[in-house]
């Protein structure tokens, strides 16, 4: 490469450069503290418009007052001084979006932080967008397979649904989300995991886990770590959903996980208090409900005329010692279409995932369940409810009649079947087989301790010997009498073979 070549190239590029004298609105920093700047001037600025500081940092205007503007600074604010000139960019905060983001770890501004190089894209989406309207929507009719038996059978989640995962610390909330991502392999789903205020070590562990499971081929991680400013925690979920919308606009189905929204609310509370907005209950600002409702409303299932595609949202909320009646949990419970309630007691009893089946609901998911699953899960729900009632009651007396005893035994087995280790998703067909065996009483004469091994053996055996049944469930979502007969025969054969 000669010197001339470089000069010529440079000349060519400079030729394209055009400069127009433009009147620009500027302001000056009055004060700056804790990631917040107060700026005078900037009279024409819009709400949540970006501003740029002289050292290249950007900010977002949140408070528009009579003669000053309150700005949150996205990034390092230590080099911003009083009197610095601030320019309005004239654009609402937006993040880059691209297909190339799949498999990457991004920060809250959509820039990669995994050291795998820059992502070239010229497209960007504003982080705040009005949620899709009623006429563009369609009701939920297709399931998200999480691979977790307790959820897929009793609390089914549909594509486009918003299902809250709520529970105390250390009850396996993230584990459910990760299992759900891992099970999306080959299900034509893009996953976005938004980590808000989490430890970087936890994120790294999670990323490695997803890579090992081959899930990073369809997953994007958006992270605002606990060492970063609360402004970034505040915008991270909106960044995540903007990226998700980019894929939904292509007609794809997206699963987005917000881990967790209680930290998001706390970050927003910090910003609001620093901006001197009046505090309300638990010191949260008045618009904390809107904060989450506008985010979760963007989850939707769009109808064919508007391009199809869906965003399924799984927000996570961490409660303090099981208190679901605190401000943020009640807010998010009322926004979402149901919740998966995890309990510490169950977790330590060894019932993992520690889903409290009685308190968990899915308000729209049942219409997305396949017919075969509906058939087997209907009686399961009843079995479990009766079991819980009798369990408390049976502790007082020892003399129980036959009917009660058999119900108790059935319940014990049902609880056992719903237990599942982490990172071990179960296919829908296998779930149907196991639950069929359970609800039709084929497991009643198996000892509770050996239910787990029986289950494993049965699915393996049935896969080989009840091919018609499997084919029917996969293709038509329901079994015929013929398939059922085959399955019953298979189960009996299998039981005979283990008794030998």
């Amino acid at each position, binding site marked *: 490469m000669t010197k001339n070549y470089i000069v010529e190239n440079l000349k060519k*590029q400079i030729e394209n450069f055009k400069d127009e*004298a433009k009147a620009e609105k500027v302001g000056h920093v009055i004060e700056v503290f804790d990631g917040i700047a107060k700026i005078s001037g900037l009279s024409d600025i819009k709400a949540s418009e970006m501003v740029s500081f002289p050292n290249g940092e950007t900010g977002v205007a949140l408070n528009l007052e009579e003669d000053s503007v309150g700005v949150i600074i996205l990034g390092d604010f230590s080099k911003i001084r009083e009197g610095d000139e601030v320019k309005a960019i004239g654009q609402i905060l937006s993040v880059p979006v691209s297909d190339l983001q799949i498999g990457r770890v991004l920060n809250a501004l959509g820039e990669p932080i995994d050291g795998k190089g820059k992502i070239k894209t010229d497209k960007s989406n504003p982080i705040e967008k009005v949620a899709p309207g009623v006429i563009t929507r369609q009701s939920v009719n297709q399931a998200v397979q999480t691979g977790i038996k307790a959820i897929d059978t009793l609390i089914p989640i549909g594509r486009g649904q918003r299902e809250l995962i709520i529970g105390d610390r250390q009850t396996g909330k993230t584990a459910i989300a990760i299992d759900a991502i891992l099970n999306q392999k080959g299900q034509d789903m893009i996953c976005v995991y938004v980590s808000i205020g989490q430890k970087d070590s936890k994120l790294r562990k999670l990323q490695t886990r997803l890579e090992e499971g081959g899930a990073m081929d369809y997953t994007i991680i958006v992270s605002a770590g606990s060492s970063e400013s609360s402004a970034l925690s505040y915008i991270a979920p909106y960044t995540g959903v903007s990226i998700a919308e980019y894929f939904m606009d292509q007609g794809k189905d997206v699963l987005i996980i917000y881990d967790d929204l209680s930290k998001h609310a706390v970050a927003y509370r910090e910003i609001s208090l620093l901006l001197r907005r009046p505090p309300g209950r638990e010191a949260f600002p008045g618009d904390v409900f809107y904060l989450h409702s506008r985010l979760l409303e963007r989850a939707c299932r769009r109808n064919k005329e508007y391009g199809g595609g869906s965003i399924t949202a799984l927000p996570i909320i961490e409660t303090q010692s099981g208190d679901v009646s605190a401000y943020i949990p009640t807010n998010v419970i009322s926004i979402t279409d149901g919740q998966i309630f995890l309990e510490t007691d169950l977790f330590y009893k060894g019932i993992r995932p520690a889903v409290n089946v009685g308190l968990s609901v899915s308000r729209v998911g049942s219409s997305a369940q396949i017919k075969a699953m509906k058939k087997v899960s209907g009686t399961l729900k009843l079995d479990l409810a009766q079991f819980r009632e009798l369990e408390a009651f049976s502790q007082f007396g020892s003399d129980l009649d036959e009917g009660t005893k058999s119900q108790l035994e059935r319940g014990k087995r049902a609880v056992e079947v719903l237990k599942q280790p982490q990172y071990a998703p179960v296919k829908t067909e296998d779930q149907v087989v196991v639950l069929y065996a359970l609800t039709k009483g084929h497991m009643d004469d198996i000892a509770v301790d050996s239910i787990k091994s029986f289950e494993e053996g049965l699915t393996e055996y049935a896969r080989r010997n009840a091919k018609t049944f499997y084919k029917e469930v996969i293709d038509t979502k329901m079994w015929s009498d013929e398939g059922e007969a085959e399955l019953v025969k298979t189960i009996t054969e299998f039981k005979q073979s283990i008794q030998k």
Partner: protein
Amino acid sequence: MATISINNLARAIYESSHDKDEAELDAVMKNAVNIISKKHLLSKSKEIINQLEKIADKNNGVIRAKISSKIKLEQKAITEIEDFIKKRYKAQNTVLEFQINEKLLGGIKIEIGDEIIDTTLKNKIKKLQNYLITK
């Protein structure tokens, strides 16, 4: 009672004084100072005067502009700038403040309120730099 904002105070002083003759003005001013001291706002008098100036400028159609250049501007250029400002902001009068700044390298920079028209060489070079980086 709610505290009075500086802006409101300045506006009140302006409203009560702008169409008064000299004798009345004296009395108005006395009252104004009395109120300011009563409300413990004497320490803010500088800001009140600033605000008062802004209000008066706005109502009298006066535009204050700060013009920076590398060299001292010729009279012809100054009248041209004045005309431009009057036309652009529909002002009757202008108060221009001139500044010499070697660092601008060339061209002029006009600052009016929170608006800046920057045609200096320095700014152009900066823009070119940004352009080449992002290209």
